[in-house]
């Protein structure tokens, strides 16, 4: 289990497999600096909660078929407001979660089109 601490002090405990979807966290785990939990100064609690929700759904092997995942992604991304969307982009970039970054940027691109 890995503990993540957001910028406003909230802590989240999640399974390693879920956390490893973030390349940044994966590198930290490799370098062995996760004893006291990982402080994420750039990410607030609300956004971190959303990210964890996404990662839990996209854990390898679970979550359902490709079609189901696509439908879930669509609902996930359409139900958030603009400010959350942009904060998600920044957080996904910081945490280096490629699939989430692609999803959020595509959403912005579609909104502009």
């Amino acid at each position: 289990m890995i503990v993540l601490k957001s910028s406003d002090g909230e802590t989240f405990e999640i399974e390693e497999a879920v956390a490893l979807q973030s390349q940044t966290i994966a590198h930290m785990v490799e370098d062995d600096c996760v004893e006291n939990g990982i402080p994420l100064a750039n990410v607030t609690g609300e956004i971190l909660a959303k990210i964890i929700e996404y990662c839990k759904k996209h854990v390898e092997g679970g979550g359902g078929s490709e079609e189901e995942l696509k439908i879930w992604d669509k609902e996930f991304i359409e139900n958030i407001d603009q400010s959350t969307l942009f904060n998600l982009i920044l957080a996904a970039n910081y945490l280096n979660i490629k699939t989430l970054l692609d999803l959020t940027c595509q959403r912005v691109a579609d909104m502009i089109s």
Partner: protein
Amino acid sequence: MKKTKQIHISKPFDLLSDELVFIILDLISQNPSDLKSFSLTCKWFYQAESKHRRSLKPLRAEYLPRILSRYRNTSDLDLTFCPRVTDYALSVVGCISGPTLQSVDLSRSGSFSAAGLMRLALKCVNLVEIDLSNATEMRDAAAAVIAEARSLERIKLGRCKMLTDMGIGCIAVGCRKLTMVSLKWCVGVGDLGVGLLAVKCKEIRSLDLSYLPITGKCLHDVLKLSHLEELLLEGCFGVDDDSLKSLRHDCKSLKKLDASSCQNLTQRGLTSLLSGARCLQRLDLAHCSSVISLDFASSLKKVSASLQSIRLDGCSVTSDGLKAIGNMCNSLKEVSLSKCVSVTDEGLSSLVMKLKDLRKLDITCCRKLSGVSITQIASSCPLLVSLKMESCSLVSREAFWLIGQKCRLLEELDLTDNEIDDEGLKSISSCHSLSSLKLGICLNITDKGLSYIGMGCSNLSELDLYRSVGITDIGISSIAQGCARLETINISYCKDITDKSLVSLSKCSWLQTFESRGCPNITSQGLAAIAVRCKRLAKLDLKKCPYINDSGLLTLAHFSQSLKQINLSDTAVTDVGLVSLANIGCIQNISVVNSSGLSPSGVAAALLGCGGLRKAKLHASLRSLLPPSLIHHLEARGCAFLWKDNTLQAELDPKYWKLQLEDNVP
């Protein structure tokens, strides 16, 4: 309990760094008009887009200084829309975009000389790719200048007739990093020049020597290149058996060899060429002068294990030869026997029986083939992706039922001039990946058949119904309903088509090419419907549609900003409609012969207004009515004229005269 703070951002984009904005812009780039409206939203977006864009395709060379100043990160510059690119323009390109420019395309431009190229070569230190094809006036001095671009890796010099061995030698010595060289039709270059290239530029991977007066001598050096993957020798009449006699090479990297139309190359020479190419994957022997018999097939022994694609268009093949090829080359994935009129059922069946992995088969105009062959193809090759069988008219209707049943992976199907009927189309509609379907001159199909296609083939992007006169509006609307991704449609001479079809086709927002020659029932209303909703319309053929008039053209001029090519011969268009086309910035090709509503001054105004015009097809009588100074000016601006005189000869429509001929023969 903590109260969650609502984060309210007034300017969300301020948070994002440049890289993140670029990722978003990459995703919008699919649609150029979206990108344009993005950049016009505010100054910040304008600057972001200016930093993001890397490849440019300007419509007019006059705008180059401004465009290049705005887009400072230009790495690809495509000047094919600009017929006149002067030395000044090239020096501007060099000065402003020098360090970032990597690729330039000047294949459709003229009016530059060695001086301009010198500025380009010296200032663009990172220039990796240049296309100078069609520079028919370019001489060795210019080639020596190009050699100054030391980082050059890919160079195209097709049709540069004035270049000689000296020029190529300069390039070989100066540009050591060359990997791709095309000298197609550079008829002044011979063995010496090519030999120098082979000796000096060791990194060459792709070499196009088509139509050069070379002999087999230079090939001794060429085949020593250790990275050579692609060698094209189309039409090299000097490459013959004698000059290849002592050729011993070990070119393991060679993957593609094109020796088509080499009239003096026979089996002996081919054996020498193929002797060391053990990893050859693609072989092109179209229009070979020898007969492809059992003997000939034996020369393919060395490459039989690795060969994946073979092209024998226009060759005379025997059944024994085909059988031998089938036996030896089991891993063949692509076979082309287009216009091999001597192919029989026996030969083809023995070939395809052995080729379980066959993906593409071209048997266009193999007239002797009947249903037997098709049955064999369908049973033996379930992985078939492309089948072209134009004019195999002996194939019965029943044979087509089998194709759809067995070859479910088909993406491309050419059934022009065949006996297929609605049942056959029903079977084909089960090929859900079908993207290109050609049903020209298929007189037995009706709307029912098309409705099956509309329901089953949702990925269809190209549909050809040329002269398939059984089709009416009902069939077209079922296609438009089911195939949202339709890009190309040809309904020429389908006399029963009316505006209803055009209105239903306007649903296909990706439509780019629309050809409806000789449809007497379509009017400007239908045209307007398409113009308004199909924003990507690029090519339009409305010849012999007598009810197309100015009102349709005015709508087109307003909405179709991507239109490049239009044919309005024999329509009711007048000066007003023609001049309105000048509103479309990228129009390049206008054809308007025999339209009685036009006057010389109207045509002159239209021609002058269309700044990017490259080809104008007009009635021969206008040649004497238009002022010669106007014609000179337009030609200097880059427009080529084609003067048609229909009174002298009826226009030969190649497929139609064949139909007429068949009608006359009892």
